[in-house]
């Protein structure tokens, strides 16, 4: 499955459009519950544990979108965009969406 965030796959032509596909994950993020993050809150610096967590949930959201596209019979998703929003206090949703197409 080819993924791009351009409006088409460069070098290939789109032969069919299947419509919007999406995937999302909701992650609960609270630095206070994590002791290491609490220490980092005094001196600053990268929170590697959280980066890993975000990486995993992002991969999961993309996988869900790709699964939807595969069901429709597409072989590429173009115009992929990410969107984040606060859902509940301390929880944020990562939403990824794009147009499922078939490229030659």
């Amino acid at each position, binding site marked *: 499955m080819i993924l791009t965030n351009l409006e088409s796959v460069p070098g290939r032509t789109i032969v069919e459009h299947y419509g919007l596909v999406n995937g999302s994950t909701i992650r609960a993020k609270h630095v206070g519950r994590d002791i290491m993050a609490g220490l*980092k809150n005094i001196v600053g610096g*990268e929170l590697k544990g959280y980066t890993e967590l975000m990486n995993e949930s*992002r991969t999961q959201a993309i996988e869900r979108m790709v699964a939807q596209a595969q069901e429709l019979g597409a072989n590429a998703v173009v115009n992929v965009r990410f969107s984040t929003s606060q859902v509940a206090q301390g929880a944020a949703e990562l939403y990824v969406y794009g147009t499922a197409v078939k490229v030659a």
Partner: protein
Amino acid sequence: MENEQVSFLQGCLGCVQLLIPVFLLALGFFVGRANERRHYRSIHEREQRWLSVPALANKTIEDPRPVAQAKLVVGEVVISVDYWKRIASILRSLIGGEVRSYSSLLDRARREAVLRMKTQAPSAHAFYNVRLETTSIAGGRNRKSIGAVEVLAYGTAVRFKE
């Protein structure tokens, strides 16, 4: 005699209670500054290496060469706010104006996220339609305060046929 000892101990405890936030503040300031300087040095060095491979916001490819491969690449980083930055922002909120302590945090996070995105495709010639998404992560005791900042950078890595 005992009353004097008790009041002396109470005085000591009071001193210690006052010194703890000052100590944390000093720790946040000195160690936080050192961390930030080290991070900026690393960012500068890596940006020099990736200078020939630009990250563009363009949606259209103006290059005449045919495209060999294009794929979505993502880079992400979560950086936490230190104690000094938090106190500085509270002080700034009393007066108003630019919160410079947070500006450097966001600048570091954005540049780091873009660099990580570039390392996902080492053989690319350019990155098109690079977008940035920023989220704030809730802090410790007070849910409204910012604990950390997450920046997600994504774009399409393009390799041209030579």
